[in-house]
């Protein structure tokens, strides 16, 4: 079976985002970009399913600027077989991305689509669920375990109070949570091999998808800063201050 994995190029998780002085957005000049951590987990899960003989082909897809080819190459080096970039320089909403992914899903007819639960830039946590709705598929979000048997997939989900397991008919959509797996590092030979794997570039127009949005970002500001407080010398002083100064004990 074929698996489609959707990935996003984001600001590296170790870089602290700073706001532009004109409040139009976040600074990207000279910042390190990376594969969204949850997308890395999605790629890893697909590769493991292929290694187990469950999947036969992994198609990795990204919606983003031409530079997102770097992240697609990373996914190819981790074990995906071929890549598709739906190129758009615009800052698309999750719904627009879901519509573009739906068009790719229609074309590729995968049995399983794996996405990260959330991109660490927009922090939306929407795309997988929206893709599931548009495709008319079941969704296993925030997955910590994925088991395929026959024409169903059992997904164990991280929920607020613990874990929940659901069974979904295939094809289905899965979004990854942290504990699903620990992604591997790409080896140098695999990085070299990835350069020769096929990477197709499409556009929203070619897919016949409108990316119009009902949302508009009016401004982006820095959050109110929290100032550093005082250092205390002992546990006794700490407890005294919490009781008498902060009055929270």
């Amino acid at each position, binding site marked *: 079976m074929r698996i489609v994995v959707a990935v996003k190029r984001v600001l590296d998780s170790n870089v602290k985002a700073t706001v532009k002085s004109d409040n139009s957005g*976040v600074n990207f000049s000279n910042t390190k970009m990376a594969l969204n951590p949850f997308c890395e987990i999605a790629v890893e899960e697909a590769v493991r399913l292929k290694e187990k003989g469950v999947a036969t082909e992994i198609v990795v897809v990204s919606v983003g600027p031409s530079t997102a080819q770097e992240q697609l190459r990373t996914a190819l080096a981790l074990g995906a077989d071929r890549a598709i970039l739906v190129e758009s320089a615009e800052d698309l909403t999750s719904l627009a991305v879901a519509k573009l992914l739906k068009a790719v899903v229609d074309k590729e007819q995968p049995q399983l689509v794996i996405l990260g639960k959330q991109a660490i830039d927009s*922090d939306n946590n*929407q795309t997988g669920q*929206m893709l599931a709705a548009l495709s008319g598929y079941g969704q296993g979000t925030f997955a910590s375990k994925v088991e395929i048997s026959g024409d169903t997939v059992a997904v164990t989900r991280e929920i607020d109070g613990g*874990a929940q397991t659901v069974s979904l008919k295939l094809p289905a959509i899965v979004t990854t949570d942290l504990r699903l797996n620990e992604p591997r590092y790409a080896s140098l030979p695999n990085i070299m091999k990835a350069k020769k794997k096929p990477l197709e570039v499409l556009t929203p127009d070619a897919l016949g998808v409108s990316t119009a949005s009902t949302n508009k970002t009016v401004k982006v500001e820095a959050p109110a800063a929290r100032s550093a407080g005082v250092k205390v010398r002992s546990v006794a002083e700490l407890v005294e*201050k919490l009781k008498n100064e902060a009055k929270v004990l």
Partner: protein
Amino acid sequence: MTILVIAEHDNKVLAPATLNTVAAAAKIGGDIHVLVAGQGAGAVAEAAAQVAGVAKVLVADNAAYAHQLPENVAPLVAELGKGYSHILAAATSNGKNILPRVAAALDVDQISEIISVESADTFKRPIYAGNAIATVQSNAAVKVITVRATGFDPVAATGGSAAVEAVAAAHDAGLSSFVGEELAKSDRPELTAAKIVVSGGRGMQNGDNFKHLYALADKLGAAVGASRAAVDAGFVPNDMQVGQTGKIVAPQLYIAVGISGAIQHLAGMKDSKVIVAINKDEEAPIFQVADYGLVADLFDAVPEMAVLA
């Protein structure tokens, strides 16, 4: 303007996050209706009818809604929601699961995890792990929004007397089924509702050492959380994770123990009223946001604090 709030519940109890969501709806203004989709959730509907400011409670009672499967609940919400100006749900794992499916069905963009209402169509929400706050305006006919509980003080659970109305609509998509769940059992307060939270990080060294935090938490009546590093290392389960992609908390007192203070962790707790950091590395970034910092070995300091507090 009429706003539909999706009740968060387990068929028995109306979850407190619903009260914060109703508070956000009240800030938007207009009539507030609450939808209770579930099975045998009569007690939840009764509780929702008493929530201050709620005008009407809709109850969709069907086996297909028993476990909040989004494949079944989202079409219900989309069908009912068409006539509303806004659809709001708490940004819980359940709300996050269902609402984007509703938004896509209605062909509108969702606004996730709002922390303030600027006007009926404009909202603020954190992005980039809370390192930036975006102001987002929506021109959608139905505005679909999840609400971060820590951004809104809850409305009173009592004082209202809303009419309760049954909704016949049954949606069973036949795509998914509930297999089972394992819920963490704890006598301690729930993490997102606790007044005091004690959290441990990689500095705890192993899961067994969390017993020191449990002892302190029990003395203080606190909940226990963890950083992603502690969860990743397998010390504790994921439902204890506080951070950008875990739970967002804003208690009166947050005690960070052996937590370095990565931006992803700060995103989940920096709106706490008072922050205490206990760490033996005095350069740890957590001290930059802590009101009270103690540079000490946590294995000495935490047991001592449990005695003195």
